């Protein structure tokens, strides 16, 4: 077959989810043997597009052609057979086998089932060593660093003659030196007849590595250009955010109180020397892109992950275990409300009081009438739209589910409420309702921490905004002053 100039052609691709069109009429081409970068803010539709390419998700409509032929993978395995390998963040190597065994896995030469060492394995090892000489074929993969495991996987993708390797944030978990080596390898892949689709939030990498860049925003394709035609980071950032309209933030009045939460030198595997204070009645926002350490920060404070450094709450050192943290007066609205925030097969009535069962039970027996009274109270207070408190929470809409999670946390009598991505996947109406609830809570004197990857959200309601990048607090912004969204995006994508 005549090979066209374009290895992949995407036409009018659409992907609908129940409440949102995640990919909206996207069309662009990917040139053969190039490094093609894909950028966009969180929620721009990159991940959905990639899921369609890797076969993890099926498109709603549209057309994809790989090497000129119709391409519609049913699964990741199918995609791989058709020539698109993916380097997932969750690496697909078998730790318990050696490097050599991993490379040849599924392609072994055998005689009557007995494994043979043949030229094929030798060639694969040689190919891998030409990418990275320090990896020994007899080494167990579990003894390799993440970066070297990636290289093993890349070598395998090359050996199976993949046309395209998709790399999803491959530098998220590896060190500076390793990143340099990985980049050299990625650049070298062009000569091996491999096209790379590269996704990263670190814009500097795009300029260093890419031949082409495609920008997506709100599910739409904004532009595809050779990198050389993009002047600088600033221009790329502008393409990514477009015209962002912020709702008006109103400065709050209030007396200066002692901080309720003091964090000093908080560090762990994902976090780097984080210091800040939160005061009663203050809404503090943590803004950063995926992998910046937002969830990790929330989990550390909540006692779900271990850490070094000191966290003081109401002047006392905070214990490192969720049940004690809750008892101290902190509640967390987690990132994934279905899997982490709710008991989805239970009713609203059963969900609301779970964080503080003592308050509704006597001698171990649940007081049904109190439970009903409290649930009714929260349904009214938070305006949860439901026909009855006996409705299973999985049957509620995203916004109403989130309100149930909020109710649960409020009933725990928390003085500090942490909300991780509080409005993810929620429609606009419910969003502003949730913001109103958050504002009201802060007026009541509760301290609020919001962890979000949506800038408008943070700007809209937070008094103080911290910018996170790579596990570190990069900048502190007092809201109500001059906000420069380009500068903010510059910071959270790793700009100095």
């Amino acid at each position, binding site marked *: 077959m005549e090979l066209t100039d374009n290895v992949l052609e995407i036409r009018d691709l659409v992907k609908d989810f129940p409440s949102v069109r995640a990919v909206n009429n996207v069309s662009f081409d990917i040139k053969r043997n190039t490094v093609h970068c894909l950028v966009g803010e969180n929620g721009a539709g990159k991940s959905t597009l990639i899921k369609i390419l890797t076969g993890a998700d099926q498109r709603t409509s549209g057309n994809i052609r790989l090497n000129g032929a119709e391409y519609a993978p049913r699964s*990741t*395995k199918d995609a*791989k*057979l058709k020539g698109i390998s993916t380097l997932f963040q969750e690496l*697909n*190597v*078998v*730790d*318990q*086998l050696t490097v050599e*065994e*991993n490379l040849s*896995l*599924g*392609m*072994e030469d*055998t005689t009557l*089932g*007995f*494994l043979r060492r043949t030229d094929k394995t030798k060639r694969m090892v040689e190919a891998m060593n030409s990418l990275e000489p320090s990896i020994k074929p007899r080494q167990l993969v*579990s003894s390799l660093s993440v970066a070297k495991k990636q290289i093993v996987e890349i070598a*395998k993708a090359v050996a199976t003659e993949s046309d395209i390797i998709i790399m999803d944030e491959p530098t998220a978990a590896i060190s500076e030196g390793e990143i340099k080596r990985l980049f050299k390898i990625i650049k070298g892949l062009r000569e091996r007849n491999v096209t790379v689709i590269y996704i990263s939030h670190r814009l500097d990498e795009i300029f260093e590595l890419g031949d082409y860049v495609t920008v997506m925003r709100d599910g739409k394709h904004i532009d595809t250009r050779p990198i050389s035609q993009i002047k600088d980071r600033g221009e790329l950032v502008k393409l990514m955010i477009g015209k962002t309209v912020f709702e008006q933030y109103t*400065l*709050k*009045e*209030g*007396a*200066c109180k002692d*901080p309720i939460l*003091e964090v*000093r*030198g908080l*560090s762990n595997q994902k976090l780097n*020397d984080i*210091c*800040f*204070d939160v*005061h009663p009645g*203050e809404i503090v926002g943590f803004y950063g892109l995926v992998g910046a350490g937002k969830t990790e920060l929330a989990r550390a404070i909540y006692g779900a992950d271990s850490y*070094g*450094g*000191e966290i003081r709450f109401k002047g006392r050192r905070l214990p490192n275990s969720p049940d004690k943290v809750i008892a101290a007066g902190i509640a967390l609205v987690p990132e994934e409300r279905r899997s982490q925030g709710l008991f989805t097969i239970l009713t609203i009535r059963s969900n609301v009081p779970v964080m503080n069962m003592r308050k509704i039970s006597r001698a171990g027996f649940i007081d049904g009438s109190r439970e009903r009274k409290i649930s009714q109270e929260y349904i009214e207070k938070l305006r949860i739209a439901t026909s009855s408190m006996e409705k299973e929470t999985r049957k509620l809409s995203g916004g109403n589910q989130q309100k149930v999670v909020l109710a649960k946390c409020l009933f725990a009598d928390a003085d500090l409420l942490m909300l991780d991505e509080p409005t993810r996947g929620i429609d606009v109406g419910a969003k502003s309702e949730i913001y109103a609830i958050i504002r009201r809570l802060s007026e009541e004197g509760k301290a609020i921490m919001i962890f979000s990857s949506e800038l408008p959200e943070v700007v809209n309601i937070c*008094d*103080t905004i911290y910018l996170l990048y790579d596990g570190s607090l990069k900048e*502190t*912004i*007092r809201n*109500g*002053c*001059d906000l420069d969204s380009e500068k903010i995006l510059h910071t959270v994508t790793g700009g100095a």
Partner: protein
Amino acid sequence: MGPVAPQKAAWASKEQEGKTVSRTSQESVRGRLERSNALRANIKRVYIYVFLVLIVAIFSVAKLGQVEMFGRGHFLSPNSIVNLLRSAVPIMTLAGAFTLLMISGYIDLSVGSAMSLAAVVFALMIRSGASLPASIAGVLVMGIALGAINGFLVMKLRITPVIATLVTLNLYKGIALLIVPDGLSAIKGTAEAPMPAWINDYARKDVLLGLPWAFYVALLVIAALVILQRKTIIGKYAAAIGGNRTAAELSGISAVKMVWILYAAVGAFAALAGISRASYMSLGDPLSGDNMELDCIIAVLLGGTAFSGGEGSVAKTIVGALIIMCVTTGLMTVIPAYWQTVAKASVLLIAVILNHLLVRVKA
């Protein structure tokens, strides 16, 4: 920063304090981790042999003569060794395939019941006049079918292995009990239909060094499975599936097919174990395989196979099996029968703790 409300300025000033925190030097942490990993790897390599030697030594030194010895001599006398090896035949036959299944990350709790059912069917066939080879072949086919049923439930219907094989554990045992006529505890020779003497030929008759065919077959099975695990594609694929099923499937391996085959193999070897038990006892006892799954799991875990799959060794499982046999037969001479169950549980506990400490080396 522009105009800032006063109270916010106060918030800001406090952040500059307390920025001094001693960060643990990554170098030293990594060094310590590597050393402890290397130490664990070394302990893991040898501990099972040390364990076996230790147990044999303890039983040999202990003055067993003071207790009623069931006519046996010293723990290391040829007579007791032969007895120990003969009683170890079923677990030696079965544990190898069981290990491969567990390396691939799956488990079969129904092995004991499959063994009992095989024993009953075997005795029935022999008593009704079938020849020894024909009976063995027939029961083996049945064993493959029993294993394949487990494979179907787990791999096709995707029922959790523990649940699926717990169901078949009861099913197979129930069938075995149903086959045995009312009023009898086992299929055995009666006045009208005596059990032919050659039922013993397989697992009791002395062929070489006081040991029967069944023992040498078990040795052969072990040797074959050790080679299978180390040198063939089946051993490698089992480890790959247990280690990272997604990675294995992305490499084109059919996990469903592989594990299904392993389940069928475990069924076949459970049947062979049942045959040797029936042949040894000259009867088909529907309870003869009881608790075999426990013995297998202890042996596998003692042998250092990860419960979650991915790595393990058939050879070490066999050492583990010998440890169990030493403990049970050794204790048989010292303590009452009920205490043996407690002793076995203790060995299981030790196995699980060692397994946890040694196998699950954190990445």
